[in-house]
């Protein structure tokens, strides 16, 4: 790091309680961390991890409890106070300013000025940002516009922003959820390097492998309480899972043997807008779980969007049940039995301020209506049914979806599509940012659907997941399908080779 670092941080949280109407987010939680230490924080969604992080970042105030930093009680922690103390925070949700370039984003609010008029000193700013980007090994430079960056690069940008202050405690909330394997590896190396520099790193993730690799200690939360701690030597996946959910999960990836049925979807020579010169051929069978693997930016999401009718296609045919779709019409795709669980749950999958009931019933309104009038009774029955079937944890169907945890939000998205009795479900990163328990439930549901003869196409960047659940894997690389692997041929290596060739 370019700047001289102050002394190492020692931070101690004790008896932290935070109450929200209708829910206790944190109940007497304790956590300590000091410089040169990497602590993994794990827990299911809704366990209170994010709330704890927000308290550390000064975004919200605890109702009770004590925060001790460098031996001094800090009563009112505000974001600027936290930053002054060297606490930097990388959020799970990315919100870079896409109208600015990399340098302006990294040093936002801390621009270097020169002269009496206080003009922004671009040269000095770039000189300051470049070494941070070097440290992270980014593909982008300080002058690149952020609007051109991929999701993964935006993630690295957020981390660069955190590193640009005199950081003593770096908090990372699910930093790898949108990163590829090599980028994740790179990030873990950065974390290790920061540790040797005496930085404390608090690392929140659902990917337990990463914890095993990098953490010195792991702290688990469950239902807003401390659920145990493991030291370096004790860290193993099984024990972490047990702490998080309070029991054994049994077999995580259950893999039933499906007999693939008749072909449901045929994609012939499809060319998407992202890769107008690559023709994609794909055939999906009923009762089969197919995965679309590949690096971020390989054109997987674009393919899914084209099939679902969101984006117009450049050429080629989409055939569902031997009927050619006109294309670029979501209603048509839904009528043909295609559903899409989108990658960006909050922006594309849900109406956050609307009730759970309203969200589940949204695509079914017309089907359940009587002469154009909404049938509230039928919709309530439908939503109630879905809640029981998918085990959506909510006190009432009238609660806004925004109040639910990530896993439960994803279940609401699934519920709204299952109500349509689809023949093909496309799931784009269905388990991103959701906890182990909910993940297992989603996998179970997918197996069940395949057993009922539904065709599933899963887009996933999680290798373990791809290998664990799929009957067949199509690997995409720069807009084309570079290879198809059967279950027997599936290894991390074989997928990766096709993904980067």
């Amino acid at each position, binding site marked *: 790091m370019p700047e001289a670092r102050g002394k190492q941080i020692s931070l101690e949280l004790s008896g932290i*309680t935070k109450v929200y*109407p209708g*829910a*206790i987010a944190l109940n007497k939680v304790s956590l300590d961390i000091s410089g040169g230490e990497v602590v993994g924080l794990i827990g299911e969604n809704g366990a209170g991890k994010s709330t704890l992080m927000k308290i550390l970042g000064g975004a919200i105030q605890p109702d009770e409890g004590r925060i001790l930093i460098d031996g001094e009680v800090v009563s009112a922690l505000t974001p600027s106070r936290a930053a002054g103390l060297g606490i930097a925070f990388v959020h799970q949700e990315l919100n870079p300013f896409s109208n600015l370039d990399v340098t302006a984003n990294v040093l936002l609010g801390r621009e270097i000025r020169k002269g009496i008029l206080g003009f922004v000193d671009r040269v000095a700013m770039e000189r300051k940002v470049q070494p941070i980007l070097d440290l992270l090994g980014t593909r982008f430079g300080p002058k690149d516009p952020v609007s051109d960056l991929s999701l993964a690069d935006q993630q690295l940008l957020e981390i660069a922003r955190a590193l640009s202050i005199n950081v003593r405690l770096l908090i990372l909330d699910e930093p790898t959820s949108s990163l590829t394997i090599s980028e994740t590896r790179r990030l873990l190396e950065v974390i290790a390097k920061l540790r040797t520099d005496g930085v404390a790193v608090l690392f929140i993730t659902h990917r337990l492998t990463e914890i095993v690799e990098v953490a010195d200690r792991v702290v688990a939360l469950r239902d807003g309480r401390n659920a145990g701690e493991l030291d370096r030597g004790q860290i193993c996946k099984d024990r972490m899972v047990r702490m998080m959910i309070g029991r054994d999960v049994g077999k995580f990836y259950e893999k039933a043997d499906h007999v693939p049925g008749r072909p449901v979807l045929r994609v012939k020579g499809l060319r998407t807008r992202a890769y107008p010169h690559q023709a994609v051929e794909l055939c999906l069978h009923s009762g089969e779980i197919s995965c679309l693997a590949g690096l971020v930016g390989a054109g997987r999401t674009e393919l899914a969007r084209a099939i679902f009718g969101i984006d117009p296609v450049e050429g080629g045919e989409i055939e569902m049940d031997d009927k050619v779709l006109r294309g670029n019409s979501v209603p048509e795709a839904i009528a043909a039995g295609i559903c899409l669980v989108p990658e960006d749950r909050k*922006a594309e999958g849900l109406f956050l301020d*609307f009730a759970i009931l309203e969200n589940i019933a949204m*695509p079914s309104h017309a089907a359940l209506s009587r002469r*154009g*009038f*909404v049938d509230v009774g039928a919709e309530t029955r439908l939503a109630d049914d879905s809640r029981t079937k998918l085990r959506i944890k909510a006190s009432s169907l009238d609660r806004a979806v925004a109040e639910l945890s990530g896993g439960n939000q994803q279940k609401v998205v699934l519920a709204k599509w299952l109500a349509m009795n689809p023949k093909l479900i496309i799931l784009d990163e269905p388990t991103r940012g959701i906890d182990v328990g909910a993940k297992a439930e989603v996998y179970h549901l997918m197996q069940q659907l395949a057993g009922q003869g539904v065709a599933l196409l899963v887009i996933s960047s999680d290798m373990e997941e791809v290998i664990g659940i799929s009957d067949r894997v199509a690997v995409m690389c720069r807009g084309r399908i570079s290879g198809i692997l059967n279950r027997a041929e599936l290894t991390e290596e074989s997928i990766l080779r096709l993904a980067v060739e």
Partner: protein
Amino acid sequence: MQKKDIGLATLVVSVGAIVAMVNPRFLSPINLANTANLIGLFGLFSIAEAFVIVTAGIELSIGSVIALLGVIFVDLIASFNVPWPMALAVVMVLSIFIGLLHGWLITRLKLQPFVVTLCGLLIYRGVARFYTKDGTAGFTFGSDFPMLEFLVSGRTAGVPHSVVAFGLVAIVAWFLLHRTVFGRHLFAVGKNVEAARYSGIDTDRVIIQAYVLCAFLTGISAVFFAMYTRSVQPSSHGNFYELYGIAAAVLGGFSLRGGEGSIVGVVLGVILLQILQNLVNLLGIPSSLNFAVMGSVILAGVIADTQFSRYREVRRQQMAMAALQDSEQR
């Protein structure tokens, strides 16, 4: 009724009561009928505006459309001797065309609603003035249309027909917005247009329909206003009416970000605004302060609304904390 509506209704009743106490003439049959007539007239296009605002859009050309269609309606009858049902049909077809045009520009050409309808505001006003060479379009002296006049400006049992029309439109609008699939789709498109698309809603179509509906109601309103004033002065007729409609909708709980609001709210908003106008007259406040009074009340209402919801949040928080401590002591 939603909580907001109840709050607004209380406000309407209390303002009405205060005015009545200070000046009992407020409750005189003549004053009530006149106020009701104005509520009916202004209510028609306020509901029109609400349908567009709920989709996170805006319609700024309402006043100009009322002037243009008013001029055309009167002129067709007065100068071209077109039978009034024909003239009415022409006006309604034109209004639908205007709605389609706005919707098309917004959805297909991806223009911002504010820009499209701002241009509409300027264009229609200009065309209306050009059409009459900046003169006033009026009926020739002594002309009489008993049927039309009865339908539009007549009364049944003392109730002005504008109020009857407003009531009918409000009831239909309530069902449409709060009980039909179309209504749900309007809210969905206004709240999150991406998620609406991903849910299989034809968002472009819903938005176009909203603008057509708005323009259609504005067309009806234009006929009522033309018959109310009997002569249309195109440079001033309907000025600022779009802002009046927006004010009524905002007062009634519609968010300009879309996806929120209720028909009961906008109806109450219209009533409140008219009572305020009436209050200015009855309490001897200089009529030049008219807009200032309206603006202040809307501002106060919006501030009160946000403060109340913040207060409720804090209260819920405290109760939850108390419940937690309570359960631990036991």
